[in-house]
C-alpha cells in the first residue's frame, strides 16, 4: 500500500484534490462561503488603497489593465512555444526538454505579473465582479491552471527525459494546458462585456 502511494504520489494527490472539490460541492460548502466573501469585495472596492487608486485615477487603471494584457500575452507566448513543441508542431528539431525548461521561468514571472495586475483591476470593480459568474469561472480556471502547471505538468516534464514519457500523455498535457489558458484569457475578456 505504502509503496503504491509513493510510486503514484501525483496521481493519488490529484485524485484527493478532485475528491475534496466534489465533497465541497456536494456539501454545499462553496455556496455557504460565497456570501461571506461579499464584505471583502466591498472593502477592496471602497476602503483599500487599490480600490481607491483604481476608481479615482482612470489612467492608472487603464495602464494596469494594459499591463495585465501584456502579461497574458507573454503567458500565451510561453504556452504556445511549450505546448506546440509537445504536440510536435513547432521546434521539432529542438529537444522538448530544452523548450519546456527554457520558458518556465518566463511563464512564472508573467503569471505573477498577471495575478498582481489582475488583483488591482478587480479591486476597482470589486462590487461588480463579485456578482459575475464569469469572474468566478475565471478565478477557478486560473487556480486550476496554476496548480496544473506547478504541481502536474512541470514536475512531470522535468522528472525524466520526454522520450520516456508516453507520447499521448505529452499530447494530453499540451492540449489540457492550451484549453485551460485559453479559457482563462477568454473569460477575462468576457468580464469586460458583462
Amino acid at each position, binding site marked *: 500500500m505504502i509503496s503504491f502511494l509513493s510510486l503514484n504520489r501525483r496521481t493519488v494527490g490529484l485524485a484527493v484534490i478532485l475528491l475534496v472539490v466534489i465533497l465541497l460541492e456536494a456539501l454545499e460548502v462553496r455556496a455557504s462561503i460565497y456570501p461571506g466573501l461579499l464584505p471583502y469585495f466591498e472593502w477592496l472596492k471602497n476602503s483599500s488603497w487599490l480600490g481607491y487608486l483604481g476608481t479615482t485615477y482612470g489612467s492608472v487603471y487603464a495602464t494596469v489593465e494594459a499591463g495585465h*494584457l501584456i502579461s497574458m500575452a507573454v503567458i500565451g507566448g510561453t504556452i504556445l512555444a511549450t505546448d*506546440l513543441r509537445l504536440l510536435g508542431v513547432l521546434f521539432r528539431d529542438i529537444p522538448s526538454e530544452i523548450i519546456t525548461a527554457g520558458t518556465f521561468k518566463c511563464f512564472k514571472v508573467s503569471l505573477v505579473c498577471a495575478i498582481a495586475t489582475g488583483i488591482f483591476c478587480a479591486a476597482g470593480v470589486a462590487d461588480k465582479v463579485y456578482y459575475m459568474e464569469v469572474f468566478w469561472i475565471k478565478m477557478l480556471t486560473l487556480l486550476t491552471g496554476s496548480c496544473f502547471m506547478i504541481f502536474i505538468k512541470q514536475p512531470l516534464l522535468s522528472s525524466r527525459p520526454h522520450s520516456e514519457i508516453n507520447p499521448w500523455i505529452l499530447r494530453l498535457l499540451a492540449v489540457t494546458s492550451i484549453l485551460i489558458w485559453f479559457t482563462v484569457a477568454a473569460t477575462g475578456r468576457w468580464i469586460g462585456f458583462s
Partner: protein
Amino acid sequence: MINELLLQFAHWLEAQQYSQMLVSGYYSWNWLEATHVLTLMISIGSLFIIDFRMLGWVLPNVPATTIADRLHKPMITGFVIMFITGILLVYAKPVENVQSLWFRIKMLLLLLAFVNAWIFNAKMRAADGSWDADRVAPKPLRTGAIISLCLWCGVVAMGRFIPYDWVDCDKVSNTTLLWAAGCVEQLNAI
C-alpha cells in the same frame, strides 16, 4: 485639411449598412473584440519570446535565429487575424476612432513598430551567424528588441485607452489636443 478628409471618410463608412450591423449586433461586436484581444497571446506572445531571446531572458541555449524562424509563422498568423479584426472594429465605429487621440497614437506606434521590425529583420539577416548561439544577441539587435518591446507595450496600452473618454472631443478645450485628436467641429467652433 487631413482631419476634415478623415472625418468625411469616417462618416461615409459609418453610413454603410455593414458598419451599422457590426456595431448594433451585440455578439458580433463582442466576438470581434474578443478575437482581437485574444490573438494578442499568439502574435505579441510570439514576438515577445523572440525579443526576450535576443536579450537572453528565455531559451538562451537555443540559437536566436532558430527561435525567430520557428515563431515567425504563428506570429504572422496572429498579426493577420489582429489586423482583420482591428480593421472591422474601426469599420464598426469609424467616427469614434478617427476622433480618438489614443487611436491615432496607436496607429503611429504601429507604424514605428513595423519600421523597427523591418530594420531588426534586415540586421538579423545581415549579421554573420557567429553570435547565433551566444546567450545574448549583439547590441544593435538587443536595442531593436528593447525598442520593439516598448513600442508594442505602447500599442497595447493605447488600444486599452481607446474606450476611455478623458480626451474625447467634447471634454477638451486645448486646440493642440483638439487638432491631434481630429476634433474638426470643436476646432471650427473656437
